[in-house]
Each structure stands twice: as C-alpha cells, then as structure tokens.
C-alpha cells in the first residue's frame, strides 16, 4: 500500500547575518537534511504512529507521502501512485488532516465546505448523504454544523474539519497532530472517533502526535524518527518491553514510617512525604520490594504502575 525507499529531503534556507546589505546582494544558503534515506512499508488497514521530537522529520515524511513536497531523492509509492504527480485519482483516495491548519470556509457554515468537497471529490448524492450522516453522528456535530466556522470553538472546529477531510471515505488517512491544542474531552472524542472510523472504514491511518496517550490508544505499530532517520520501526508493545525496565509503586500510608527500616534494594528510588510513599524499582525487584514494604507499613491503598510511554520513548531515543 505505501512503500518508501531511501527517501531524502534537503531544505535550503538563507543564512541571516548582521550585515543586511551582504544578505541582500550576496545571500548565502545552508542545506538542512530533514530526512536521511529512510525506508519503510505500510500495509492496508494498518494504524501507525509516527513518533519523534519537533523537527525530527515526521511531518516532512507525511507531506512527501501526500504529494505536497517534492523529495530530494528516493522513491515513494502510495496506493501505486507517485504522490508528487498529484494525480486526481490518487488524491481522491487520501486525506491529510493537519492540526490547526484550516480547510474550512471561515465565514460560512461547515455544510458549505462539505458541499464544495462533494463536488471536488465527485461524491454521488446518496453516498454523500450517508457518509455525512454517519460522520455527523460519530462526531456529534449536529448542533453546530450550520453555524459559521469562525464562531466555533477549537474542539468543534477540529470535529467539523475531520468531517470535511473524511467525507470522501479515503483509503489512506494522514493525521498530523490532530489533537494539538484540544482539551482532554475534545482529545478523547477525536481519538475514539479515529479508532471507530478506522475499524468501520478499514482505512490505513498514519498518525503523528505529541500526546503519547493518543499513540498508545490507537497504534499497534510505531515508527520512531529522530534527526531525519528511523531509529525504531515495529510493535509498540515490543518497544515498551525493550525499554521499560522500571515499575512505580505508590502506597498511601496510615501512619508515619522510617524508610531506612524497610531495607529496600540500594537502587530503589524513594520519594516519601507522609502519607504518600513512592518507589521506583527495577521490574525484577518488584516482588521483593512489595513484600518488604507491605510487611513494615500500615497502608490504606497501593497502586503499581508501568513507566509512562513518554518515559519509554525518551529512553529509546537516548539509547538509540
């Protein structure tokens, strides 16, 4: 479905100096390699998370896969098409949702943009009505779909934007930070929707997000990108198993204790502020630590947590 081979992208940017005249008459440029010969493949109906820090090359990869940017070198095939050729048959089968980028007609109701997209994507009347109805229900936009887009909140705007991007039922959906700037409720709505949509329409979804919960809830496979190169491509579960070596224990105490008396392993991290005791321990020491702790303390509640995905990802970036 998607094949990327030795993809390279070099941006050329002017070097600004303090000498304005020199900058004007003899402008110098520097080259910045955003992608270093990356390769990967994505199968139909996969939901993949692209993860990496700002400037890692995630969005550049997506922009090349959607035909917005022209690659410096390498080969990209999406649904059997070369994206930059911008063949209408190809563009009709994809959608690119960019958080905080706007395709809606600002002064007019969302329904006007949908009617426009109906003509652009040449969607038959019956299919348009059916899809619009389904998406309106899934995203619960019925109460504000007829209001001018400029009067909507950010979360509402993202929801109507998603409908505009999906009204033609794309086979491949590129989502670049779809939940950026949204509150927790709006984020949950969008993430649940993406999950439901992918299941219902059997689409291939490529997602980037700075919110690791988004990736965790949606993607089984992740591609980690840093400095324009792929440092991991595989199952999220395996990544977590490989890099998550610690567990967190949180105990709510009923009485004060002397932590020295617990005699915990030397490398256990202890944070104690009555009534809360927080311990960070190696996975293989968890049983020993729990046993020693619980036999010495009077407690009200205990929780054991894995490291967050953010922490695992940070570790994997450091190690790779």
């Amino acid at each position: 479905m998607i094949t990327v081979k030795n993809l390279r992208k070099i941006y050329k940017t002017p070097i600004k100096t303090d000498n304005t005249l020199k900058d004007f008459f003899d402008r110098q440029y520097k080259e910045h390699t955003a992608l270093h010969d990356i390769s990967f493949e994505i199968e139909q109906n996969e939901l993949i998370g692209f993860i990496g820090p700002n400037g890692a090359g995630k969005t550049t990869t997506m922009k090349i896969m959607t035909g917005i940017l022209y690659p410096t070198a390498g080969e990209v095939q999406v649904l059997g098409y070369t994206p930059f050729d911008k063949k209408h048959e190809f563009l009709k089968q994809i959608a690119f949702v960019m958080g905080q980028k706007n395709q809606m007609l600002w002064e007019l109701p969302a329904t006007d943009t949908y009617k426009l997209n109906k003509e652009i994507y040449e969607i038959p009347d019956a299919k348009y009505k059916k899809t619009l109805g389904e998406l309106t229900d899934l995203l619960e936009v019925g109460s504000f779909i007829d209001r001018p887009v400029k009067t909507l909140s950010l979360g509402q705007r993202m929801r109507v934007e998603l409908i505009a991007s999906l009204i033609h039922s794309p086979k491949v959906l590129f989502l670049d930070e779809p939940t950026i700037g949204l509150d927790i409720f709006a984020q949950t709505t969008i993430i649940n929707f993406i999950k439901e949509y992918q299941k219902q329409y059997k689409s291939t979804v490529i997602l980037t997000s700075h919110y690791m919960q988004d990736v965790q809830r949606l993607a089984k496979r992740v591609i980690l990108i840093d400095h324009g190169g792929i440092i991991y491509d595989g199952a999220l579960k395996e990544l977590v198993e490989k890099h998550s070596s610690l567990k967190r224990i949180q105990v709510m105490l009923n009485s004060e204790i002397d932590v020295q008396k617990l005699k915990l392993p030397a490398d256990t991290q202890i944070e104690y502020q009555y009534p809360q005791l927080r311990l960070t321990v190696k996975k293989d020491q968890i049983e020993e630590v729990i046993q020693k702790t619980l036999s010495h303390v009077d407690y009200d509640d205990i929780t054991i947590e894995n490291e967050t995905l953010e922490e695992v990802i940070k570790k994997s970036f450091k190690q790779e």
Partner: protein
Amino acid sequence: MIKNLKIFWLFATYSMKTTLQNKVGLVLFTLGKLIRFGTFFFFVFYLLSNTELLAGYTLNQTIVFFLTYNIVDSLAQLLFREVYRFRFLVVSGDLNTVLVKPYHPFMRILVGGIDIMDAFISVIYMILVTYFIFQLPGISWINILMYLLMIVNGLLIAAGFHIAVLALGVLTTEVDHTVMIYRDMTRLATFPVDIYKQPLQFIFTFIIPIGIMMTFPVKSLLNLLSPTIYAICFTLSITAFISSIKLWDYALKRYQSWGG
C-alpha cells in the same frame, strides 16, 4: 470540465456570500471605485474639450480606450482577486490543504475568490463601452469580434502574470509588492500607449505588454492592427501563459511548506 465549472461556481457563490456579509465595506468599496472612475471620466472630457485629439484619437475613441482599460482591469481583479490573499495561505501553511485536493489548485488560489463588487462595476463599464462603441463611425461586427478576442487575449496575459505572482509567492512568500507592481504598470495604459514616445511605447507594448492588454483591443476595433501584429499578440500571450505555468511547476517542486 463540468466538474471544474461546478467548483468554480461554488467558489464564486461562497465568495459572494462572504462579501455580502460586510455591507459597509461593500458600499464603501463600490463608491470609491465609482468616484475614481467618475473623476477620470471627467478628466478625459476636460482634456479633450481643449485639445480635441489625444495622440490622434477623438474624444469618443479616447473614452473607449479608457473604458476598455477599466474593463480589462476590473475583469482581471474580478477573476484573480484570490491572488491578493495568497500570501496568508502560504505563510499559514493552509496552502497544504489546497494541494492535497483532487482539483487544479488554480481553482482555489487563482479564480477561487470571484469579487462580486468588481462584477457589478464591470457591468457598468460594459454598458458604457457598448454605448460609446456604437457612437464610433464605420465599426463592423468583425471589428467588434476582434475587439472581444483581444480582450480575452489581454486577460490571458493577466492570468499569466497572476500565476507568476503565485509562483513567486510559493518561492519567496512575496506577493503583495509584486501585485502592486502589476497594478502600477497597468495604470500606465489608462490611455492608449500611443501617448508615450519611443522607446517607451515599444516597451509598454511588447516588453511589459500592457499595450497589448489594454490598448490593442481598441486598436483592433478601429481596424488599426495588421495580421502580423495580431500574430505577435497571440504568440506573446500564449508564451506568457505557458511560461507562467512552467514557473508554477518549478515553484511547486521547490515549495518548502512554510507555516509547519
């Protein structure tokens, strides 16, 4: 083709809906244009009441030149108004949402913002020019046909120029100044370019082809153009248009997608 017409129509309708929301702006803009037009119209009458001829043209002929300039100018603004808003689209990154749609991006960024106010003003110019053309002696239907063809030819050059502006916008994010240069240059053809001495007349005709765009339609109406000149005009406009498309393709390959 039918798909493009439908999209064009929808964009035009939405543009009109958006414009009509700002009633004060609508009235002031139209009033401003009509006052400017009225002042110039009075100036032409005043000028020719003293001199009788301008570069060899009578009062009525000069008025037709003046009205034709206004028609080409306002039709170009009517059709290509969206170009004036292109910079924001580039720097905000919203251009990306246009480039991933299965239509030619010009449907949105070139002709996607039809200006209803210019449409209204253009109709006034057209009524007036029709009246004054029929005041001219010896005008045949062939002359009128060639006049219309030369106006289309002029609009093709204007389209080429606006596409070049879009391409420069993609390459440099610079749009506003380039458009202003176009506006200033075309104003030099408010009256027939024959009023300029050589080599300015040649420059304003064939190098910066405002003469071909705005003066030559009336010259063709007055039967003052040879077949060779027609051939040069059409070749020049088609070359300008194709070159601008090539420049656009070049710009897209170098597009860096500013604005994230």
